[in-house]
């Protein structure tokens, strides 16, 4: 047996994966939009490059984020990724330093012990040997954890690991075999030659004491090489493809590329960068509160990757953004889903094994035709005003919010116009959430026209759904403010004088205001002016969705109620006097789900207004009482 033939599988695999990576990256680069290409080029020679290197080191190798969430899981990932990385680096140095030639081919470093069986008994070499054994042990400990996790998933604090295909399974087996194979290959070789450090040396000596080590060793070197080769070959079509793709993603992201609103090679890269880690599954309320277990982002991305018909999955999501918040890879899951919603229907076209290597697979989508049309809307000529108040559709069903806002603005002496007093036109956000941007544009144009004509400098809305779309998709001169920001300004500039209410309240961050628009502090500071704010266990960027979300077109009302009840329960854990929200839809949803009083932040502030305003009302009451008595 020509002993060196065993390096062939490894070499084939390695060169295949290297070439494949280069070609695939080139195609991805080619498919980028012009501006994104420029961004990437600039990024490559600028600061983003160093940032990316740092990020790759911290996240892809050390897995800092996972570490923080779950140290055991973090250790597992780190030992495999960082350990392997170190093994390669120090292996290469070793081959270069101790080998007979410099600049060896990679196989020389990988199979160093085979080529130098007796190496490293004395001096510095033995220290180095010790270090290499330590690295191997480090990796093996991670592998052990991975195996435990596979069979007892609950142990690492994750509810569900994702399902595997046969390719994934084969890739998994080859990956798991690599390091045990190396351990035994090195040990047998060391055993036969009386070399090796604490791990390979001792294990080798033990094995050699009752086995023909020299004869067995080549088999394990073959296994080692085959495992590596198989793993490299399967990499592009297995779940492990995310490892190299994530590196690419990090470069792209740091160069300033974002998902945008149509599919591109950036969405493609994100699709492949998902590690199926399942972190998104465990935070999804659709899963743990509503019992719907097949729509979470991990499944959505997987469906995209495998070109399945995922229209039902795509539609059945609250668009709450909690998953995006925790995704360790940083995939922009919300925009990704919106892109998919914009597409038409998709047909199942499950790619064959070889097809999955293809670089230019086109998705089988039918372009969605516009179904809505608003040409019937008539132009309006509004009176001019500095401050426009847009209550929003939903707010018309919570008249106490409107009443409170009127009272607050009157008390602060704000001269405003109530833009949709008689019922306006929808802001367009619900259409956008349904993926109908073209139609939404019609509504946006209609409303923009009114706002421009009014000459308003400030546009105040009490609905976070409107707020988000006003800010992001309208071209306005007016400054857009959510009523919580507006009230904060009024308080700070001293226009609103408020009493203190002796109430303990909890604040709920509405999805579209918090995660959606990044407004966390303004409502909190407004509340703190007038009442005692208690902390919720899940708040700010990890706040819960109330379940009422307009981002889901298909969710049944019973399921919504389950989500609402669960969220309300968590929010009222500290038994507050009042549950405060800043969104009419959240209010409506929570009122149904809890016995705790639910109020909008505007109602809370209005209740803290000084007496005169309230005296007027009680005078009416007294009058009623008197007329009643007279009669």
């Amino acid at each position, binding site marked *: 047996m020509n002993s060196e033939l065993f390096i062939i599988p490894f070499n084939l695999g390695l060169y295949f994966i290297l070439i494949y990576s280069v070609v695939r990256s080139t195609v991805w680069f080619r498919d980028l939009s012009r501006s994104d290409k420029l961004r990437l080029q600039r990024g490559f020679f600028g600061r983003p490059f160093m940032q990316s290197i740092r990020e790759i080191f911290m996240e892809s190798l050390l897995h800092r984020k996972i570490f923080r969430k779950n140290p055991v899981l973090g250790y597992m990932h780190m030992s495999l990724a960082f350990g392997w990385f170190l093994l390669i680096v120090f292996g290469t140095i070793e081959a270069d330093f101790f080998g007979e030639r410099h600049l060896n081919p990679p196989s020389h470093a990988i199979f160093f012990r085979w080529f130098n069986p007796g190496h490293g008994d004395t001096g510095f070499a033995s220290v180095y040997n010790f270090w290499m054994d330590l690295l191997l042990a480090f990796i093996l400990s991670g592998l052990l954890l991975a195996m435990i996790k596979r069979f007892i998933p609950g142990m690492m604090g994750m509810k569900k690991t994702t399902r595997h295909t046969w390719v994934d399974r084969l890739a998994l087996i080859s990956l798991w075999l690599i390091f045990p194979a190396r351990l035994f290959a090195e040990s047998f070789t060391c055993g036969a030659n009386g070399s090796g450090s604490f791990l390979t040396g001792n294990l080798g000596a033990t094995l050699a004491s009752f086995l023909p080590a020299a004869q067995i060793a080549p088999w394990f070197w073959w296994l080692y090489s085959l495992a590596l080769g198989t793993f490299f070959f399967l990499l592009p079509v297995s779940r492990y493809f995310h490892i190299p793709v994530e590196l690419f993603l990090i470069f792209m992201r740091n160069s300033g590329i974002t998902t945008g609103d149509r599919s591109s090679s950036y969405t493609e890269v994100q699709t492949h960068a998902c590690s199926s880690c399942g972190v998104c599954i465990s935070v999804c309320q659709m899963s743990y509160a509503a019992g719907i277990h097949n729509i979470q982002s991990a499944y959505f991305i997987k469906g995209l990757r495998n070109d399945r018909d995922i229209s039902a999955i795509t539609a059945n999501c609250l668009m709450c953004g909690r998953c995006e918040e925790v995704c360790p890879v940083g995939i922009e899951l919300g925009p990704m889903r919106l892109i998919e919603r914009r597409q038409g229907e998709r047909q199942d076209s499950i790619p064959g094994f070889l097809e999955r290597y293809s670089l230019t697979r086109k998705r089988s989508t039918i372009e969605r035709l516009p179904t809505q049309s608003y040409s019937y809307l008539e132009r309006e000529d509004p009176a001019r005003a500095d401050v426009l108040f847009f209550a929003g559709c939903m707010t018309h*069903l919570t008249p106490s919010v409107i009443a409170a806002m009127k009272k607050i603005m009157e008390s602060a002496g704000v001269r405003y116009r109530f833009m949709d007093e008689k019922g306006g036109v929808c802001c367009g956000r619900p259409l956008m959430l349904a993926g109908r941007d073209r139609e939404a544009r019609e509504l946006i144009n209609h409303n923009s026209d009114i706002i421009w004509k009014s000459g308003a400098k400030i546009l105040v809305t009490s609905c976070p759904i409107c707020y988000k779309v006003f800010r992001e998709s309208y071209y306005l001169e007016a400054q857009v403010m959510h009523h919580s920001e507006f009230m904060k300004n009024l308080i700070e500039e001293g226009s609103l004088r408020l009493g203190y209410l002796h109430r303990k309240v909890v604040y709920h961050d509405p999805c579209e205001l918090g995660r959606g628009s990044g407004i966390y502090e303004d409502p909190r500071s407004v509340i703190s002016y007038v009442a005692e704010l208690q902390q919720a266990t899940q708040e700010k960027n990890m706040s819960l969705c109330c379940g009422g979300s307009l981002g889901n077109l298909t969710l049944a009302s019973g399921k919504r109620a389950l989500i609402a009840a669960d969220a309300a329960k968590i929010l009222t854990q500290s038994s507050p006097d009042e549950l405060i929200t800043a969104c009419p839809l959240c209010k409506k949803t929570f009122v149904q789900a809890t016995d705790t009083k639910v109020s909008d932040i505007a109602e809370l502030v209005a209740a803290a207004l000084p007496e005169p305003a309230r005296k007027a009302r009680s005078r009416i*009451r007294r*009058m009623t009482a008197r007329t*009643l008595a007279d*009669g």
Partner: protein
Amino acid sequence: MKEALKHIVVAGGGVAGMEAAGALAEMGFRVTLVEKNNDPGGHLGRWHALFPDRRPADEVRHYLRKRIEHRNINVITGTTVEKIRHHGHEVAVDLSGGTEERADAVIMATGFDLFDARRKEEYGYGIYDNVITSAELEDLFNNGRIVKADGKEPARVGFIHCVGSRDEKVNNNHCSKVCCVTAVKQAIEVRKMIPSCEVFCFYMDMRMYGPYYEELYRESQEVHNVNFIRGKVSEASVNINNRLVIKVEDTLAGRPLKMELDLMVLMVGMEMSAPGAKCAAASGLPAGINRFLETADHHFGNNLSSMKGVFYAGTCTAPMNITDTISHARAAVEETVRYLNRR
């Protein structure tokens, strides 16, 4: 030898409780009637004239008051029944204030609560001055004058049916049965007190299920010119003149309709009473559909609970009118006596 009188505790002193107590006393049982409020009477105490014939509620109140003036009846007011439990052969009844009554049987007659109209925020109750509930309109009738918050008479009154009933959004899928006919009765009353006032009823279905109800409905149209519009009101607001503006679809005309009102009357529905539900939960008596008490059989065991010696009477089991409440209470008495005799 005369055996000691059997003792029955009746929880709740509304129509059902008073009728049951009276009937039992008449048959020679010793009765303790426990009422949470300071006076027995229940909701009936608030009504002005009763459907279907608009007889003064006083007449029925008088009948019931007489009914419980019996030496066998001990009335305890201002006291809540908190828990019912078995104690040997007897039933022990825990009362608020820490006292306890021992009885041979218990009749639960804890009645209903009116739906809190604030929970239907879009109708503006508690926000706008001139939105009142059907119960508050009865107060106005009793005061003899129907006025708006500003003390003036309304020129147009609207009755909104099914407020807090038949509505998934407030977790009540049931029909409260009495509010349709109450609206018709109240509409007639308003028309009679203020002949110039226009009156509209906004309904989804007119449920005129009892004797004389359909006739009352007919009379309201024929004699009193009450208007009926089929549609669920979706929301209310106020305009600059401080008049209420409601939005509804006239489903028969097939078009949305907007209307100004001076006074809006919400026909609030019936819900399981909170103190009754609390007592039932503490005693392990199961709640049934829409949280009313679950009876052992919907046809031939409608007064039976799941607990030996405990019987149900009146609206704690489902919405009903006074006629049915009295019949139900008498049936509960019959079941109780049968139980006591068999023991």
